[in-house]
Structures are given as structure tokens and as C-alpha cells.
């Protein structure tokens, strides 16, 4: 298994073993409890602290203790994805990934969104995407992203 999936599984098992709820109210343990990963940085200036860890193989692991209602719903909608024999990672839905990426709206995010739409086009719940994304874009006072996403969603895939 590649080191990135292995590191993600490591964190997932760490949380499961301690019964951490998968919602953003989970408390993160002290540095002693984060073995085998070690701290890179703890950023707590925000209402949603970020924990940057370093995994066993030097793999950077970025943890956001989400506080937005959308983040909590995305966690609730997450499902296991089989990455290897006997190993599954909890991953967010394609719809939620599009929302996360459209909200961030960096160049690479748009390339990723294009790929997600191509792969998932007939299975995407567009209603859910707009239901989650629209209020976030209003918060951000972003009037461009919705139209750009609309164009990608409307583009014929075949």
C-alpha cells in the first residue's frame, strides 16, 4: 500500500480505537497521545483549530477540527472506500468534495472538479451541491464561482 493511504489509515484507526466521534466536536489528545505521528504545527488562532502532523514515513497529515455545519454534514455523509484488500478509508462524497473545492476555488481545485464531474456525472446529486454551496458562497460574497461551476456541470460529458 502506498504511504499516503497507509498514513490516512493510521489516523483513522487511531481515532476509531479511542472512540472519537466523527463530528467536529471531537477533542484532540495531547501530543503524547498522537503517537506514532508527531506534531508539525498546531494552529489555534481560528475557531476551527488545525493540527498539522507528520506520519510514520514523513507523510504530512493535515487535520481540521471542522466547526461549520456543512463540515459536520459532510462528515456524516462520508462513506468507506476500499483502498486495498481488507482496508477502507472514510471519504467524503463526490458532491461534498465539489463543494469544498468550489468554495476554495484555486486553479488546481477547478481541474479537480472537472475530473470529478467527468467521473461521477450521472451519479451526482446536483441539488445537494447547490443546497450546500449556495449559502457558503453568499457568506464569502462570491458571485463568480456558482456560474463557473454551473458551466462545468452543464457541459456534456460524452
Amino acid at each position, binding site marked *: 500500500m502506498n504511504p*499516503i493511504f497507509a498514513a490516512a489509515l493510521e489516523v483513522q484507526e487511531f481515532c476509531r480505537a479511542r472512540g472519537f466521534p466523527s463530528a467536529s466536536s471531537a477533542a484532540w489528545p495531547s501530543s503524547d497521545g498522537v503517537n506514532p505521528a508527531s506534531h508539525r504545527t498546531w494552529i489555534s488562532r481560528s475557531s*476551527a483549530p488545525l493540527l*498539522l502532523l*507528520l506520519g510514520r514515513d514523513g507523510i504530512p497529515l*493535515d487535520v481540521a477540527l471542522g466547526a461549520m455545519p456543512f463540515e459536520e454534514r459532510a462528515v456524516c455523509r462520508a462513506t468507506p472506500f476500499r483502498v486495498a484488500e481488507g482496508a477502507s478509508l472514510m471519504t467524503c462524497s463526490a458532491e461534498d468534495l465539489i463543494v469544498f473545492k468550489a468554495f*476554495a476555488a484555486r486553479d488546481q481545485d477547478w481541474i479537480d472538479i472537472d475530473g470529478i464531474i467527468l467521473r461521477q456525472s450521472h451519479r451526482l446529486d446536483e441539488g445537494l451541491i447547490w443546497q450546500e454551496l449556495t449559502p457558503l458562497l453568499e*457568506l464569502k460574497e462570491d458571485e463568480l464561482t456558482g456560474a463557473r461551476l454551473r458551466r462545468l456541470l452543464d457541459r456534456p460529458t460524452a
Partner: protein
Amino acid sequence: MLDTGAQRAWVRQWKEDGAALAALRRQELLRLSDERALAASETLLSLVTTVTLSHRRRDWSGLIEQQALFHQRPLP
């Protein structure tokens, strides 16, 4: 040295090739099976151990930008 006409033709060809390659990429992505996609990811991500973590990456994450946007505050 190419004359202006040849340079224009070269740029036109370059644009057409770019569009053709983009279309090819879309078709390949469409036809890719989940099994082959996972196998390709596995191959690509296995190369990660040969990459040294940059100093910047040690204390920076795209999540910092994302959370700053979520909470409408300036980047640290």
C-alpha cells in the same frame, strides 16, 4: 529562424494539439474503470516516499486557506 507566417502556423498547431489532448484526457477519464483508477493512484502515490517535505509544507496546509475562507478571517 521561423518567419512570422511560420510562427503563426506553429502557434495555431500548438493550440489545436492542446485542444485535442484535452479531449483525449477527458475521454480517458470517462472510460477509466474504478479498478484502473485505483491502481494508477497507487502507483502515483507510491512515489511520494522519494519526495522530501518542503520547509513550507511543514507549517502550511491548504486547509489553512480553506478554514480562513470558512471563517472569513485573514490568513495567518
